[in-house]
């Protein structure tokens, strides 16, 4: 089974701090994603990457950036955290697009609280 590991399950940060969320996968999946999950809003795509050093904006990229220097690692960066970025952040991976099926494997999530 693919394992997607998010390094921090719970973080508490202060407004204006720089925040790094790390995600590591142990399989050879090309695609990696960052979603945020908020009650009543479902899962919203922040950024994704389909190859090393490649990144694409999702639906809500504002206030975030990403880094993918190695195939197995995808980082989400909040340059200056704000209270409205308090959320659950989910990393996911999938193999290269295959016949239109984007089968996502998710990590357990990182719950970020910004005070």
């Amino acid at each position, binding site marked *: 089974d693919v394992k997607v590991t998010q390094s921090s399950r719970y973080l508490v940060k202060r407004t204006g701090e720089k925040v790094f969320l790390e995600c590591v996968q142990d399989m050879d999946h090309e695609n990696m994603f960052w979603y945020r999950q908020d009650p009543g809003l479902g899962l919203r795509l922040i950024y994704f990457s389909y190859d090393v050093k490649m990144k694409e904006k999702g639906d809500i990229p504002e206030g975030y950036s990403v880094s993918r220097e190695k195939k197995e690692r995808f980082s989400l960066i909040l340059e200056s955290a704000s209270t409205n970025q308090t959320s659950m952040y989910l990393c996911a991976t999938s193999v290269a697009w295959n016949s239109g*099926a984007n*089968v996502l494997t998710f*990590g357990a999530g990182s719950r970020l609280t910004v005070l």
Partner: protein
Amino acid sequence: QQQVKQSPQSLIVQKGGISIINCAYENTAFDYFPWYQQFPGKGPALLIAIRPDVSEKKEGRFTISFNKSAKQFSLHIMDSQPGDSATYFCAAPGAGSYQLTFGKGTKLSVIP
């Protein structure tokens, strides 16, 4: 941008009953419609998915029904069990992308 409308937002079903969750999508270029299941404290996990060359797919107690002309699909959970209590998300690909857009989720509670 794809829109996926999921209903209901929450659902309470008695043990042994049928749980039904509905989703509607807009245009999509790719035929792959998954349902994800999420338990508290866990990430979502793929439950079942359908490619609409068939109108229905069944895996155990879980069935997806698909209506391509209406752009709707639904999840039926037969003989619902307390262990099915979770949040369920449907998803659909975009008009020009494999990217999945998720519904807002349905919190299912199955009571004994």
